[in-house]
């Protein structure tokens, strides 16, 4: 079972590899990937440096091209594929079918991973992408229960990768328009969810107001620790409730340490850590814990138990400091 870690820059990438990642994923410094934040990501030169560093240590490097080409600008995405092939990336993570088609046609030897942004959650969708573009792997959206993951793994024509830890998207990824509804920008079109330039915090007496493009998505006390503001984790009112509540989800992170045995038995090939936008310190901390946990499991698969110091170390870097199993656990749904 591969441990796949995020790299927002070279420092994070080195932290991940040194802390025990089997593979890293990263994006170019433009809107060809859905973590297009200022100060993040790699120029072509840095990408080459990253590839050399990673592969010299026997680890793998995947380039994320998980946005959708814009009309008249498609060539920038095609160029990114050409660059990835030239630099010898170990795989491309792609959502758009025209890009899958381009990569499959021009570089049939270059493994393709279907991005979570393609929102493929069932056998029919996986068959489609396998037969049309010969994808090698799919990254499953965070909407399936553990049982559904198991069922799909039994029949899947491709390898399965799942999200193991990090921020929790609660919607079928790649098809969520909440961000663009409020800000005009979405991961699919503008390169990120809830872009920072639309976020504004205001202090009003004892309250902190969190606004996204002027829409009030939360009101908290000044000492409450809040996660990054997104529409799905705001507190809202209905006619049936007097006080505001997290109608969709509270600011929690996904943590599946306790599921390692089940995921391994299901045949999941890769565990993904979310967080290309996070610091090298986060990447190092999370990678270390997950390395230890996976190794502990592999040594004695029947005796695996999560350790409290692992959980504590992960809780410290989690959004809102609360973690959940998310949709893997049926009752969450």
């Amino acid at each position, binding site marked *: 079972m591969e441990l796949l870690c995020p790299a927002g820059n070279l420092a994070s990438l080195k932290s991940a590899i040194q802390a025990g990642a089997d593979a890293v994923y990263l994006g170019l410094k433009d809107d060809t990937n859905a973590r297009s934040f200022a100060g993040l990501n790699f120029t072509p030169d840095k990408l080459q440096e990253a590839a050399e560093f990673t592969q010299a240590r026997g680890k793998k490097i995947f380039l994320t091209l998980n946005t959708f080409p814009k009309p008249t600008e498609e060539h920038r995405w095609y160029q990114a594929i050409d660059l990835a092939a030239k630099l010898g990336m170990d795989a491309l993570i792609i959502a758009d079918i025209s890009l899958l088609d381009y990569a499959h046609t021009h570089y049939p030897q270059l493994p393709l991973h279907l991005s979570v942004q393609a929102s493929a959650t069932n056998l*029919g969708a996986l068959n489609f992408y396998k037969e049309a573009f010969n994808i090698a792997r799919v990254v499953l959206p965070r*909407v399936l229960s553990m049982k559904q993951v198991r069922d799909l793994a039994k029949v899947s024509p491709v390898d399965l990768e799942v999200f193991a830890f990090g921020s929790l998207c609660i919607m079928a990824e790649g098809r969520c328009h*909440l961000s663009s509804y409020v800000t005009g920008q979405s991961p699919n079109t503008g390169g990120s969810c809830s872009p920072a330039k639309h976020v504004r915090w205001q202090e009003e007496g004892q309250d902190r107001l969190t606004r996204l493009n002027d829409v009030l*998505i939360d009101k908290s006390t000044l000492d409450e620790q809040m996660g990054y503001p997104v529409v799905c984790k705001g507190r*809202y009112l209905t006619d049936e409730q007097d006080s505001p509540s997290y109608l969709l989800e509270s600011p929690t992170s996904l943590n599946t340490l306790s599921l390692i045995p089940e995921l391994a038995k299901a045949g999941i090939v890769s565990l993904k850590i979310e967080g290309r936008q996070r610091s090298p310190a986060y990447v190092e901390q999370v990678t270390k814990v997950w390395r230890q946990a996976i190794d502990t499991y592999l040594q004695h698969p029947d005796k695996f138990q999560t350790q409290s110091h692992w959980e504590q170390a992960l809780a410290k870097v989690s959004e809102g400091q609360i973690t959940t199993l998310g949709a893997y656990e049926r009752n969450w749904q």
Partner: protein
Amino acid sequence: MNISLGPLLYCWQKQQVSDFYQQVAASNIPLVYLGEAVCSRRRELKWGDYLELAQMLKQAGKDVVISTLALIEAPSEYTELKRQVDNGEFIIEANDMAAVYLAKEHKLPFVCGASINNYNRASLDILARFGMQRFVMPIELSKAWLGQVIQDKPAFEVEVLGHGYLPLAHSARCFTARHKQLTKDSCETICRQYSKGLLAQTQEQQPLLRLNGIQTQSAACLDLRSELADMEQMGVDVFRVSPSSMECIANASALVDSINTPSALQSNTVPLSAEQCNGYWFGEAGLTMQLSE
């Protein structure tokens, strides 16, 4: 240009649904999509019931398309989808790639729904090779985007959601059940209580979202009726009305009339919602209301 009626996205009682489609059958609306597109736990109508309604509408002279689920997770949902695609009579609206796959396998033409990610012409042309006859534009895209994409006349038709609440997202979680402190597995189909979804407002009483089971919709109602002539001119083939009440039938009928008699548009359209939006069409945040150019 045609006017279509999208599938009912809410969980109405069987009799209501039946009454609704009887009225549709008697209307001048030429193109009707129907079927459960949101949640497989809704069992007010079974597949056989939808098929009967589809046949009734066909006999009334309508073009009928079977809409399929947007989020397919359980093997049982995939099995049900196979049955729907292989119905032998009606084409389907694919709202997930699984439906595209099955239609392609059976060499059947299909409509590609708005919940499938299509953001450029190259992707659309690939789907057209696989049998896509018509494409419904993803809701967050704009007039400018569409203009670029269909500059060279495509081999497929183009449909745009023009009126109704916007389906913004789908989740494994049922938000309506959660609001009622129920789990999804024992949801009691509680979404039946909300014929247009459950309104969620910000703490400043700004209507923001509409919880419709596992689907999250816009609180505001998309209204692009003023853009109808513009759409026709740029080559849009179908303008979709997504129904949320019986009144939507009259609204869609008025639009059908207005295509033949443009002056009818202003006088016959009923404002169906105080909160309206059209931002996406103009390349802005979806919830905004832009003035027509």
